[in-house]
């Protein structure tokens, strides 16, 4: 049986406890300590994100160097990364030329991906209507069509009609009920996940 060091769970629980205390106790000492711990956490999150990017590079480096199945895509990804990284380090991200090049590549690709999403979503909703003809599928599609009509500027016109306007307003607000239930569910789930970490039941840091 492998015995794990209690140091890491102890640090996790202690740090989390102090940060959590800061939410509920307005003492200056606790607030300052909490701000310092979160500040360190932000710095560490930056390093963690960099580690994630470096890991992506390492994975693609191995794929590009695989003698049996060399990946051209990985090679292109590495080239794009190294050029952007090198030029960015040299010029700094605030340089207008660097910004211009990044925007010239990122904006068309991001907008086009979003545009492709429109077609994919329309196709997927049509398939949903064809394959899942149940109540929920119908409610979903009717709701989607209804709100698309609203988003197209239909609501202000309908609002003018005496009785229909009130009903349309109510239907426009109706998704709030479900959204509130979903948000409360997410919050309850987050609370449980956080408490499990504090109690040491979940230890996602042991790798």
């Amino acid at each position, binding site marked *: 049986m492998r015995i794990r060091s209690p140091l890491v769970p102890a640090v*996790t629980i202690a740090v989390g406890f102090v940060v959590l205390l800061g939410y509920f106790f307005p003492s200056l000492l606790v607030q300052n300590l909490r701000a310092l711990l979160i500040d360190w956490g932000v710095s560490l999150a*930056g390093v963690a994100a*960099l580690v994630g990017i470096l*890991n992506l590079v390492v994975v693609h480096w191995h794929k590009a160097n695989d003698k049996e199945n060399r990946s051209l895509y990985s090679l292109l990804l590495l080239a794009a990364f190294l050029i952007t990284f090198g030029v960015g380090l040299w010029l700094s991200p605030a340089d207008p030329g660097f910004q211009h090049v990044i925007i010239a590549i990122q904006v068309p690709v991001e907008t086009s991906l979003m545009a492709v999403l429109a077609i994919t979503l329309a196709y997927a909703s049509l398939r949903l209507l064809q394959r899942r003809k149940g109540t*929920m599928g119908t409610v979903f599609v009717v709701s*989607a069509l209804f709100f698309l009509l609203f988003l197209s500027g239909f609501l202000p016109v309908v609002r003018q009609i005496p009785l229909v306007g009130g009903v349309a307003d109510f239907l426009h*607000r109706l998704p709030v009920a479900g*959204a509130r239930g979903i948000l409360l569910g997410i919050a309850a789930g987050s609370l449980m996940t956080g408490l499990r970490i504090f109690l040491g039941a979940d230890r996602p840091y*042991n*790798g």
Partner: protein
Amino acid sequence: MQQDFLWTLIGFLLTLLVFSYLLGDHFLFRLVASLFVGVAAGYAAVLLIYQVILPRLIYPFGEGGALAILRAIVPLVLGLLMLTKLFPRFSRLGNLSMGYLVGVGAAVLIGGAVIGTLSGQLRASAAGFDLHRAALAGRSPVGALVEAVIFLFGTISALLYFQFSVRSKNNPQAARPPLLEAIASIGKVFIAVTLGAIFAGVFAAALAALIDRLDFITEFIFMLVF
């Protein structure tokens, strides 16, 4: 002028390459996806170095006083330990940094969930029953009350839909009690309405992007031809 044309041409080609996905997931789309991920990762790495790592972990040692150095030394050590996660043989050394990050993250998660979501949403649900405010807004108090009751029921039923745990004692099929099942099935309708509205919002945004790209393509072709 020539440089502007070059970048517009690159934007045009990238747009066409992404649109080629509509013909299937193939070589051209994967090329542009790899290019995009590479550029985005490189840009993110540069931003992290210039905006987080240098000012928070490195500059205090050169420019800051003793207090700034003391404040920077702990995250620097933890950051160096975090870097060991890149090397499988030494990755266990990074557990302490991960533990710290998870502790802060869990506390912020709990605080955000309790103060931001639970308290905020419960208060918003209760606010619907404020008939005085409804009257001031020019709404009928009875209508506002009916709406608040429907919304509260929708919220509770949607929340109950996510309750999947059941008592196993004397319940071999592990089914929810009939009343709970009935309320949860109504909650499912509220969730479907909400997801439909979200879908419509995302679709409208995506449609705007599609119109923008089609406009860009036609304008560029017109610019080339005329």
